[in-house]
């Protein structure tokens, strides 16, 4: 009730004001008339009433001040005054707004990216209730296995779930080669597609842009194969021609009819955040991946699940659904005699990226936010210094206002409003900056994805358009920065010592020291932050450089790989024919087949190793190894240091022989001769154990992770029936590009339907591995490029201000005999002192960062980002420190030179 009355009073404030006036006037008149009755003269009566009453204007304000507890009216007045102040000082305002725009803009861009990846719901129909299935295993395995299930498993869940309506399955991206209708094999194209359940489109997408979606009849294995194209692909391949509907695309010898195009805004179901070129019904899976039909395989986890919670009551239904799915998952696991039990199921809000709840993701995001926030802090330091400088110039104005009766609280509020206004203006410009930067980011990411030939040119898509979250974040940041950089100057200057400030300029030496302490502190802080960013960037880039020059232990630049499973119905004979033909070519130095070429991850199989004195070691998960043809070692140039490699006869009969890496031998059979030792492998992951005997030892290599030598690695021969899933590795002689072309031609002649895209190991998998450190390094470099100029400008500003303040002192010094050079040295020395302190702090921070990066950036499955970079890498630390010191020196020198040119006489006369 009270609030309503107050608001009402505020709304009617002009009427209230006049009423108050009237009431006070009435009081005065009544008093005066009483005085008259008491016998005073009219003039006396009025005067006495006035005297007793006090100043009516002040009284009126005091009465109104009761209303001002709401504060709105004065806030409005403050705002208007602040805006006028900004317009009066365009120079300072411009610099401040630009600096803030830069700092806030960078932060907003990052947040927009984070928003697009992790916070925005999937761009599908009714995204609110959509969840993604994730299960947690007893063994603690993380990553892809948590999200993928097999098709029979999906059907089981779909039939039995009651809590989830609309359970949808979508496969990983499948890469195929397709020939458009009427074209020849010469014009075939590579496509990426997904097979999906029949309710995929009806549940997720709006109306088709052209044509239609799958009918239930088309999802049966015997129906005519059909596919739905994605909008970008339709534009790219068919230029948006509506007659593309009804045409066919031949994939692996099977004609797929194009029945429709997805709507423009439909970019798939995310995870990975790539737009597929087409979608096909799950029943067609075998046509797309001949030799690997997984539709009926209960243990082959190939599809991710999306579902809808049944009612609109969010959280209670979610936990119920999770409980039900856990039960189903455990039942399924039991029916499959799975040893690694499911211990939990979470249904996460479906976002574009997928693993946004993972700890590592959150850690990386937090770290990045902190680092980007540093830029904003540096910008704030600049602004604080600027406001301090301006505040000293406004001492007069503030002192006058205090003399007129303004309370400190009122002044504080007004000064804060000014900095808040600056913050908001900076934030608005920051939004513009981030808008432009987001576009740039998208272009860069798109080019990055397309340059990764391994991904086959799929289109990357994040929606970076700002939504309410981005705006809210920017608003919050603007206000926060306004308070941050405005608080200290506001506190200092609202405390102005009245009388001394009212006097003309002159001696302010006393106040100067505490102010300059703050200024020095800020300069030191800026320098430290910039140094920290610079050195961190340097470390990361140095790590990248080192990883580029590491020797993986096998040939990469001259070895090209091509997947054999892109061919139609590959047969053993075909494989052998291809390999023989290639071997016969003059440009080819070696051909081998491999199931898991370097850089494609771990094996995921179990091994039992007969160790010392018959003890058995059971190694589960994360096993490193490869199933190869005998000429693998010669092709990849991996030398054998002991024993022999397996022969082709042994390979053909699937003999139980194996070659292990040197470190494997060292780990399991230390000090003994590894030749003749045995171990067992469950190669097919179906609990059938095959025994192997070690016949040779190979030199250590870095197959899984460029920055670490494989701790354990074994090579076993490839029996013929495994050929279907293998990759051909071809080492060429001579100029790699020419030789590669010759190989492609040869492959085309042998099998026109193969259409290989030959990529070297170097450009393919190795490059992918280095991607993370490349991105981190470049990102850190960008931040450093932002931070250094900001700090430089800050130092420049501070020194310039110092010089202008001490003109008189400089004049006196020169009059007393100081040389211009001496004055310059004095200024420089004093301004570099905080820089030196900042350098010390920055150094310590960088050392901390170095140890943190070394410890935490060891992400699983990813090359160490700081590979080969020593703790206190001298090049980075020393070199960059000197560089930044030089920048600071230059920034101080330029305004200091002005000090030299001071004319003593003019300075002395200056009052």
């Amino acid at each position: 009730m009270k609030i309503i009355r107050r608001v009402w009073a505020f709304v009617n404030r002009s009427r209230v004001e006049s009423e108050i006036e009237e009431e006070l006037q009435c009081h005065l008149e009544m008093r005066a008339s009483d005085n008259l009755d008491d016998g005073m003269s009219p003039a006396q009566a009025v005067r006495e009433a006035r005297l007793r009453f006090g100043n009516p204007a002040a009284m009126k304000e005091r009465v109104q001040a009761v209303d001002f507890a709401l504060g709105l009216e004065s806030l409005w007045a403050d705002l208007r005054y602040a805006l006028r102040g900004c317009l009066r000082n365009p120079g300072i305002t411009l610099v401040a707004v630009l600096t803030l725009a830069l700092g806030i803009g960078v932060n907003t861009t990052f947040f927009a990216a984070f928003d697009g990846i992790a916070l925005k719901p999937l761009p599908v129909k009714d995204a609110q209730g959509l969840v993604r299935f994730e299960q947690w295993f007893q063994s603690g395995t993380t990553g892809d296995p948590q999200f993928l299930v097999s098709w029979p498993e999906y059907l089981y869940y779909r039939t039995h779930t009651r809590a989830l309506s609309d359970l949808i399955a979508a496969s990983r991206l499948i890469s195929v080669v397709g020939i458009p209708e009427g074209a020849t094999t010469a014009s075939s194209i590579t496509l990426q597609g997904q097979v999906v359940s029949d309710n995929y489109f009806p549940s997720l997408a709006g109306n088709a842009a052209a044509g239609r979606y799958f009918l239930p009849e088309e999802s049966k294995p015997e129906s005519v194969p059909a596919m739905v194209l994605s909008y970008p692909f339709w534009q790219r391949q068919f230029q948006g021609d509506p007659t593309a509907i009804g045409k066919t695309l031949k994939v692996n010898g099977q004609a797929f009819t194009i029945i429709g195009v997805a709507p423009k805004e439909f970019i798939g179901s995310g995870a990975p955040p790539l737009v597929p070129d087409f979608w096909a019904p799950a029943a067609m899976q075998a046509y797309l991946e001949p030799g690997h039909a997984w539709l009926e395989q209960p243990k082959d986890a190939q599809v991710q699940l999306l579902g809808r919670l049944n009612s609109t009551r969010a959280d209670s239904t979610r936990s119920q659904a999770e409980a039900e799915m856990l039960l189903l998952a455990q039942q399924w696991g039991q029916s499959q005699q799975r040893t690694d039990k499911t211990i939990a199921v979470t249904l996460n809000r479906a976002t574009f990226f997928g693993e946004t709840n993972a700890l590592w993701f959150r850690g990386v995001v937090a770290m990045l936010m902190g680092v980007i926030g540093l830029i904003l802090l540096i910008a704030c330091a600049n602004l604080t210094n600027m406001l301090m400088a301006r505040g000293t110039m406004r001492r007069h104005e503030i002192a006058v206002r205090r003399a007129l009766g303004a309370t400190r609280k009122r002044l504080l509020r007004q000064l804060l409003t000014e900095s808040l206004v600056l913050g908001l203006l900076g934030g608005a410009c920051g939004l513009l900056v981030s808008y432009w930067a987001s576009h740039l980011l998208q272009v860069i990411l798109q080019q990055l994805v397309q340059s990764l030939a391994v991904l086959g040119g799929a289109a990357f898509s994040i929606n970076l358009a700002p939504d309410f979250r981005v705006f809210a974040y920017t608003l919050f940041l603007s206000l926060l920065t306004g308070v941050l950089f405005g608080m200290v100057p506001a506190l200092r200057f609202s405390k102005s010592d009245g009388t001394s400030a009212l006097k003309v300029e002159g001696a302010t030496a006393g106040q100067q020291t505490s102010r300059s302490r703050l200024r020095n502190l800020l300069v030191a802080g800026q320098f430290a932050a910039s140094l920290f960013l610079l050195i961190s960037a340097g470390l990361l880039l140095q790590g990248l450089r080192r990883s580029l020059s590491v020797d993986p232990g096998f040939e990469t630049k001259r070895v090209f790989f091509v997947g054999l499973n892109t061919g139609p119905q590959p047969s053993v004979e075909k494989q052998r024919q291809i390999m023989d033909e290639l071997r016969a070519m003059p440009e080819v130095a070696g051909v081998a087949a491999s199931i898991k070429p370097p850089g494609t991850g771990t094996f995921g199989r179990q091994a039992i190793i007969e160790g010392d004195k018959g003890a058995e070691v059971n190694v589960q998960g994360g096993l490193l190894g490869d199933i190869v043809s005998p000429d693998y070692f010669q092709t990849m140039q991996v030398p054998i240091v002991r024993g022999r490699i397996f022969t082709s006869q042994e390979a053909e009969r699937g003999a139980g022989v194996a070659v292990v890496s040197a470190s494997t031998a060292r780990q399991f059979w230390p000090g003994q001769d590894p030749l003749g030792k045995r171990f067992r492998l469950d190669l097919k992951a179906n609990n059938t154990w095959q025994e192997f005997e070690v016949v040779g030892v190979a030199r250590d290599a870095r197959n899984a992770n460029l920055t670490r030598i494989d701790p354990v690695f074994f090579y076993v021969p490839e029996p013929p029936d495994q050929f279907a899933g293998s990759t051909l590795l071809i080492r060429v002689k001579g100029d790699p590009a020419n030789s590669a072309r010759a190989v492609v031609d040869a492959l085309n002649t042998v099998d026109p339907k193969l259409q290989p895209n030959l990529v070297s190991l170097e450009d393919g998998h190795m490059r992918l591995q280095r991607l993370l450190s490349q991105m981190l390094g470049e990102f850190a470099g960008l931040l450093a490029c932002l931070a250094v100029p900001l700090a430089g400008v800050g130092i420049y500003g501070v020194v310039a201000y110092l010089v202008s303040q001490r003109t008189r002192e400089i004049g006196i010094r020169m009059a007393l005999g100081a040389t211009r050079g001496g004055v310059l040295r004095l200024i420089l020395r004093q301004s570099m002192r905080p820089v030196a302190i900042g350098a010390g702090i920055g150094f310590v921070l960088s050392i901390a960062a170095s140890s943190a990066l070394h410890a935490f950036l060891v992400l699983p499955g990813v090359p160490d980002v700081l590979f080969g970079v020593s703790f206190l890498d001298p090049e980075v630390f020393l070199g960059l420190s000197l560089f930044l010191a030089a920048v600071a020196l230059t920034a101080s020198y330029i305004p200091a030179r002005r000090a030299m040119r001071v004319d003593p006489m003019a300075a002395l006369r200056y009052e």
Partner: protein
Amino acid sequence: MARNDLQGTLDLLVLKTLAQIPALHGYGIVLHIQRASRDILQVEEGSLYPALHRMELSGWLSSEWVASEGKRRARFYKLTVAGRKQLAAAEESWEQLMVGVQAMRSFA
């Protein structure tokens, strides 16, 4: 201590006045307090009107403009139900204050 106590005392005086005389304007309140306290309490006029405004916003008083005898109109204040409650509370705390101070004074 000072400001709040004085403010509280003024509140008490105003509320009591309006309990004794149903409707009164500001000047009348001043006169009444002066008379009723036998000239001992002279209300600081500078603090009266802000206090009246505040009490009205708090809902303890209600006011209306009344034209009086052909002269200019004046604003008359009345106690509200909430105001009566507040008066009772203020009187009680005043009693307690008295007891406390007296006890303090007679402490040997």
